[in-house]
């Protein structure tokens, strides 16, 4: 039902935690299922140098939160601006159609943390 990538992120979530004195915080909740992602980031010289994440909810949400950190650490803000839910979905392999909204939550957390206006 879920891809091996999702299962692997659930079993070994990456960059779990919370940065001290972060440059930005993105704390977003899906009001329907109450899944939540809380992302803290450090931004130095227009580049995201570090990130930590916490999440609760169904497997794709936790996996999306985990994979998000892998996709954003070390990237320039310009690169991050063009990151989309498709990139998250691609990194997670197959997502059941009913679960596609989990990728949106991850992107929302990033935008809120970095301060992009959308």
């Amino acid at each position, binding site marked *: *039902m879920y891809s091996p990538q999702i299962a692997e992120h659930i079993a070994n979530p990456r960059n779990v935690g919370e940065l001290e004195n972060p440059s930005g915080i993105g704390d977003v909740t899906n009001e329907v299922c109450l899944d*939540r992602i809380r992302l803290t980031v450090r931004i130095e010289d227009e580049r995201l140098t570090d990130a930590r994440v*916490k999440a*609760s*909810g*169904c*497997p794709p949400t936790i996996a999306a939160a985990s994979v998000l950190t892998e996709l954003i650490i070390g990237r320039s803000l310009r690169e991050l601006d063009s990151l989309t839910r498709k990139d998250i979905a691609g990194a997670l392999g197959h997502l059941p159609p009913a679960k596609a909204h989990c990728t949106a939550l991850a992107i929302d957390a990033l935008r809120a943390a970095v301060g992009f206006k959308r």
Partner: protein
Amino acid sequence: MKVYLDNSATTAMAAEVIEAMLPYFSDEMGNAQSVHSFGQRAKAAVEKARREVAALINAPPAEIVFVSGGTEADNLAVRGIAEAHRDYGRHIITTKIEHPAVLATCESLEGAGYRVTYLPVSRGGLVSIRDVRKAISDDTILISVMLANNETGTIQPIEEIAGVVAEARARGLDHLHFHTDAVQAIGKISVDVNRLGVDLLSLSGHKIHGPKGIGALYVRKGTRLTKLLHGGHHERDRRAGTENVPGIVGLGKAAELARTQLDERIKRMRKLRDYLEQQMISRFPDVRVNGDGQQRVPNVSNVTFGGIDGESLLIALDLKGIAVSTGSACASGSLEPSHVLQALGLMRDEVRGSLRFSLGAYTTQQEIDYAVSVLSQTVARLREMIPADETESVEAVAESQSKP
């Protein structure tokens, strides 16, 4: 290590069952209806299995009807009674926590002009005798209440309900019948159709280390029942279709093992289940056991881990070789959370964090030890991930529960 703790979903076949079945796929391929010696040997094997299934539930062999499984047994019981007695009444009583095989059949009958009462259950998952008594009316033809629930393992007071049925019959409700779905109870507790006082009882092979695709419906002698399947006079005209001889032989062997090893299996499963539960509670004091802690089968533990999504936990455990199930909303493609746990009055979050461990006759101490160790790490890791204020609320809940 692979640890299968989802025996309420299905079980591995016992080695003895496989061995008993094998000849009936090849050399002993006879059709039990044939007159020649191949057919007669198949017929003899079917009748031997019928005696074994009958012995397991203390019924006469002639009152056992072989069917394709628990779902068909439930369909045959509910629809068969409803249709055979429609001229005497069109009211059925059941519960909100039945298996979908009963619930969906009842819903389908509602579309055909029947009236169905779905009784509520207590927080422990038990039906109240008073509710049953109050629900019976002059046109009630069937009461269907499961013996043990598939999600929580809670055992219903079937004998007491049978007493209410007897009272109603004494008042003249001649067409009132009593059915129990015993699929999850067989092989876990002692089941005796006379002590229970039921007219019909469903059971399934693959829940008791027998084969899939075979089950039986006990039908008390003299019960009028409309057939579901037409096309022959098999099974005393209760169910048409060539007998699934290997399946029936396998069910017979599984029934024999379930009967002769029952005490030993109960002791073993209860010891391991209780140990598993104690270990979980000692590591995570906020773990709640769902269903009635006492009135339940010895092999099931349904628990809620606060703050965690059951499916996330399930997947993490699966990656470590441990198979369990959950009543969580998103599980297995269904967006509807468990109707059973909802009927128990659990809050959405409690249903979401629920996990069912179900042991089998062959579960070992080493397997449980491994499961406990992986579970501890996994729950701790998933809890670490929960954003701060949610963790606080989980602790607050645990604290409020521990107060008298």
